[in-house]
């Protein structure tokens, strides 16, 4: 009998836990602006969201994932208002699925690719020649199949005529943040990573970088779209304008994202 009582007790415990009320975040304005943001914006966006809330009274929540995942989710009806992608191909897919207000992705920033290494990695100098030398045994890049910074890294290596020579050294990461983790954790000696990652306090403390000349690869243009039928469509457009005001463009540039034009 006591066995059964224990079971009833366990079930009651589960039941009471499942009936607990959902905790609601303290509202600033009734419905927040929901932003689907590419993973490379994670170090950059939070202070800008706060500035936007201070200036307009509109609270904005961002969800960070890879642009590919976010695009798939939006196409399948995710309740986002604004999509800030890491390139223009993913917003383009959302447009083609009929889920965007725009007919063209709105470029809002241009990413910078850098070559990064830990201070204790034993790589004497960060230049293209080092990559083919025996001193560098492993190079982290983001997956060129779907990560914009990965595509740029591959284009750069092709431009330097060394893609085939370094191919056995490449360590392919799922996204650009992971490429930075490969390099920062020492699992890859050098890494093609985003300037936004390289400028975070952690990576600044652990290593150093040289920017890749912008002419060595097609530009990493980051595009945005407002989701069709968004609950906060107006706020989304306002935020897009806000991103391109000189003050915010300046902040973005200091964090590693240049103005798009």
């Amino acid at each position, binding site marked *: 009998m006591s*066995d*059964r009582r*224990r*079971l009833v007790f*366990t*079930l009651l*415990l*589960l*039941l009471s*836990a*499942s009936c*607990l009320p*959902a*905790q*609601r*975040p303290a509202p600033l304005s009734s419905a927040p602006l*929901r932003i*689907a943001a590419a*993973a490379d914006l*994670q*170090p950059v966006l939070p202070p800008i969201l706060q500035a936007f809330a201070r200036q307009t009274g509109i609270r904005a*929540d961002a*969800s*960070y*994932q890879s642009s590919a*995942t976010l695009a*798939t*989710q939006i*196409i*399948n*009806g*995710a*309740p*986002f208002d604004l999509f800030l992608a890491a390139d223009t191909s993913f917003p383009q897919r959302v447009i083609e699925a009929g889920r965007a207000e725009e007919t063209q992705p709105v470029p809002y920033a241009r990413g910078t690719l850098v070559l990064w290494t830990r201070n204790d990695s034993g790589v004497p100098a960060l230049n293209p020649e080092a990559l083919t030398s025996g001193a560098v045994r492993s190079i982290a890049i983001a997956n060129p199949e779907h990560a914009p910074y990965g595509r740029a890294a591959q284009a750069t290596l092709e431009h330097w005529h060394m893609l085939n020579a370094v191919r056995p050294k490449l360590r392919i990461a799922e996204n650009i*943040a992971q490429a*930075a*983790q490969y390099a*920062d954790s020492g699992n890859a000696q050098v890494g093609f990573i985003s300037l936004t*990652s390289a400028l*975070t306090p*952690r*990576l600044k403390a652990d290593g150093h970088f040289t920017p890749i000349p912008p002419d060595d690869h097609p530009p990493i243009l980051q595009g945005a779209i407002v989701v069709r039928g968004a609950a906060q469509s107006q706020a989304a457009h306002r935020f897009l304008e806000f991103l391109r005001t000189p003050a915010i463009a300046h902040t973005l540039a200091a964090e590693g994202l240049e103005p798009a034009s």
Partner: protein
Amino acid sequence: MDLQALWLTLRLAATTALVLMAIAVPVAFWITTTRSRWRPLVEALTTLPLLLPPTVLGFYLLVLLGDRTFVGRAFAHWLGHPLAFSFSGLVVGSVIYSLPFAVQPLTAGFHSVDPALIEQARLLGAGRLRLLREILLPLSIRSVVAAAVLCFTHTVGEFGVVLMIGGDIPGATRTLSIAIYDQVQDFSYAAANRTSLLLLAISLVALIALYARQHHQERSRA
């Protein structure tokens, strides 16, 4: 520490465990007692979520529950919002994802009950419900508790499915495991460590409670 995510995770795990027990007990009972030729198919189907990578399972659910399919639109019409990217959507995903963790221990537990006992109960005129309530459940109580605890902890640590159908919305679908992922992506390793520690602590306490109970039972029986 992301208390909102902790809260959400506990609610999700408890709800999932409850729903799963309600589904899995009848299913396991049917598997144990049926002579139907469909039994292998049902057993295979309930094991299938173990084979699919969670993100793939999540992707299929995302497409199925999204508003491009009839099922997704029907749910959206019925609930007033799309099922994906909501708490109820996560419950549906978690139930499917953890189904084997409920059905397997229950089936094993029911099977371990002496068949002669079941046969006698039947001969004495016990109906199926009474058989389940008074013979199978009491005699395999450890499996029942084990199934509930496994479902709970498995849901606490769930990642791939939530990543795909959740959309990382604070207060609605951002669970602890997603919060940890966010923190790692953001190079906030210290915060990620703290959150992971909490996740481990919750699971550890649940498992210790389970095994301590079983140990206690074994000793009191001996």
